């Protein structure tokens, strides 16, 4: 059965090469069919791998280069359920994006399919590999495909600039990761994650600290953690809609996965005595990301950019789940990630439908025009409420798990942060929904330096093709189903397996190791349900206040102006200039490295 292991990586890349080679004579529909077929095949294979790996994590040695003793020369795929699950999720989203784009672009060209498949292959490789250097290579493969997809509309300079900002910052991240890999190789003489972890042992030296700083910063750039997040809103605001759902739904989260994987396979033992420091540091990053994303989200009127900042905020919450270093919290992050990915992807597709119909993604341009699409409006609102952690769906369960673990670790105040962020992000989406689909509130003319979006299709359309409805509504249904499915126990097992450092190091070199077990966390109690419902209501109320700002009493206007004074400098930081982003990135690396070096001794 392990013969299946390389297929999720190899299949998309091989078919991508075939499609690229024959792009001049293959009819469009055949390319569509092949690409979609590969994505669905990936889904099936990854699901099979996931089921197998739950009881027996799979280690596959490329070309039969098995390890001798504890020395691995060959390159391995080390498939545990966390990696297989992420690859599976990437496959599902790629399939949805391909279905959506069946009738979306007017002239898509064959290279779109090629790039999507390369992207899928890169993401699968990143999720499944057991080799540190390959982690870097797949990081760059998925990066290169993503940069090209982001700037796919080459006739318009804005997507190109967004793609350039994206490419430059992420390439700097890749270089940081590679420096860390070189340092770790110099110390341990190994590239296999399991072997590096074993050779590094539990000794904490400055080299391990520097290597951890560089590699985690490299991956956190992909994960768009503050202050590395600037590229994300630029890239999301201009990328084609089907590509946005992959960026927001899974690529950003893969960056976080990279840190989780490297931490628990290599650094968990040397850093073991300093878990409190690591938790504090990562929780600080998570809180900053959650709040900055939420505030900036509320300040947007370009729908895609608004959703992009909401992604940043929600990724911050996922970081909190990892930061607590507990199986239940990591399981919460996984549940949160799955439901967020589905709901956010659906919201992006709804935005895509609006763009297709009315050739705009500006909240005010679209004011009231969505009245003819009540069904879309209802789904849009439901998606927003899902993001406000509407019980009993996935974001609610995930957040409740994270918060329970936070209370145990003395980080109970994190709940306030996630609650405020959920209200702000969902409130912003609901406000946009009320403007667009209900036509409430006053229409503000003019654009405050916002992006004009070039339509991806010619002009407005009178009807929306069924494939677009199917993809968007299907994703929303899948998210609802995922939220109701009993995944709590399964995810905790998966998280325990991912955090089993000794077991990963043994299994990664073909030695047997017992499977870890973790207690199944309790279901969210009535208090959590009440608080989540309160956040949904607060989001609706906030949206209402924002929509009817014309009728505000004077004192409320004063508060609003004071808040504007606070938000304006924050907006100014998002300057769109890549040099500034690199400066922030450098500062972030310096601070993170400085804090780690000073506190870990």
């Amino acid at each position, binding site marked *: 059965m392990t013969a299946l292991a390389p297929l999720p990586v190899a299949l998309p890349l091989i078919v991508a090469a075939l499609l690229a080679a024959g792009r001049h004579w293959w009819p469009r529909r055949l390319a569509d069919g092949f690409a979609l077929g590969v994505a669905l095949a990936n889904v099936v294979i990854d699901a099979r791998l996931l089921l197998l790996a739950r009881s027996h994590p799979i280690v596959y040695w490329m070309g039969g280069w098995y390890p001798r003793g504890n020395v691995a020369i060959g390159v391995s795929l080390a498939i545990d359920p966390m990696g297989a699950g992420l690859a599976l999720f990437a496959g599902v989203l790629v399939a949805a994006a391909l279905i959506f784009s069946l009738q979306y672009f007017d002239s898509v060209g064959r290279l779109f399919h090629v790039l999507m498949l390369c992207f899928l292959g890169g993401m699968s490789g990143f999720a499944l590999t057991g080799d540190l250097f390959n982690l870097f290579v797949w990081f760059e493969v998925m990066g290169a495909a993503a940069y090209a997809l982001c700037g796919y509309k080459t006739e318009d*300079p804005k997507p190109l600039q967004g793609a350039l900002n994206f490419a430059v910052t992420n390439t700097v991240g890749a270089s940081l990761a590679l*420096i860390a890999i070189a340092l770790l190789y110099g110390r341990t003489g190994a590239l296999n994650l399991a072997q590096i972890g074993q050779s590094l042992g539990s000794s904490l030296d400055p080299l391990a600290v520097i290597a951890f700083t560089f590699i985690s910063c490299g991956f956190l750039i992909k994960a768009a953690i503050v202050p590395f997040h600037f590229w994300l809103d630029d890239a999301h605001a201009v990328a084609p809609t089907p590509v946005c759902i992959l960026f927001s739904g899974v690529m950003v989260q893969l960056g976080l996965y990279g840190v989780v994987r490297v931490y628990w396979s290599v650094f968990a033992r040397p850093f073991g005595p300093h878990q409190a420091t690591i938790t504090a540091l990562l929780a600080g990053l998570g809180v900053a990301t959650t709040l900055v994303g939420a505030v900036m989200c509320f300040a947007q009127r370009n729908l895609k950019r608004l959703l992009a900042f909401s992604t940043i905020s929600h990724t911050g919450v996922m970081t909190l789940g990892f930061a607590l270093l507990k199986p239940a919290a990591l399981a919460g992050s996984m549940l949160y990630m799955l439901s967020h990915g589905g709901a956010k992807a659906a919201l992006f597709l709804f935005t895509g439908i609006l763009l297709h119909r009315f050739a705009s993604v500006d909240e005010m341009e679209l004011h009231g025009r969505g009245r003819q699409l009540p069904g879309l409006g209802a789904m849009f609102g439901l998606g927003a409420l899902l993001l406000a952690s509407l019980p009993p769906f996935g974001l609610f369960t995930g957040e409740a798990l994270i918060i329970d673990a936070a209370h145990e670790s003395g980080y109970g105040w994190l709940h306030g942060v996630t609650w405020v962020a959920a209200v702000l992000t969902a409130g912003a989406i609901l406000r946009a929904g009320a403007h667009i689909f209900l036509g409430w509130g006053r229409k503000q003319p003019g654009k405050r330096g916002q992006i004009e979006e070039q339509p991806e299709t010619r002009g407005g359309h009178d009807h929306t093709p069924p494939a677009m409805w199917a993809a968007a509504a299907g994703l929303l249904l899948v998210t609802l189903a995922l939220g109701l499915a009993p995944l709590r126990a399964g995810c905790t097992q998966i998280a325990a397996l991912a955090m089993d450092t000794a077991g990963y190091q043994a299994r990664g070199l073909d030695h047997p190791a017992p499977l870890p077990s973790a207690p199944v966390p309790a279901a969210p109690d009535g208090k959590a349900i009440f608080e989540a419902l309160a956040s949904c209501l607060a989001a609706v109320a906030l949206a209402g206040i924002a929509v009817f700002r014309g009728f505000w009493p004077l004192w409320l206007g004063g508060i609003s102006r004071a808040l504007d004074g606070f938000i304006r400098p924050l907006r100014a930081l998002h300057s769109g200039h*890549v040099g500034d982003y*690199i400066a922030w990135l450098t500062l972030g690396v310096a601070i993170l490295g400085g804090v780690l070096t000073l506190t870990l001794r």
Partner: protein
Amino acid sequence: MSILGPVMGWFGYGVAVWIFCVGLFGLVISRNWIHLAICLSVMQSSTYVLLLEIGFRTGGTAPVFADVPVGTRAVDPVVQALMLTDIVVEATVLALIVALAVQIHRPTGTLDPDHLPELSG
């Protein structure tokens, strides 16, 4: 040599750090996409120097194990493989960046990243 030994042992690392910092500085101050791409490439080449330095063995020969006695001291071949992969990957990304810059130049006639201020706020 006995005095220079320890100095020479760190020299490569120093060069790598220097190249990295120069490239990074260039990225921050750059006002031209092509200049930016070159700075990125400079910064990346620090990883080549670092990898080579890590694999270097004083007195080692090239890692070709034909016609040499067993146990001959050789430099580490793995880092060279890593470096080649790195060069291929980075060349791809760099080509993409330059291609994007050319596409931007076509309609706007400028390579200044600040020419399009729409991506802000």
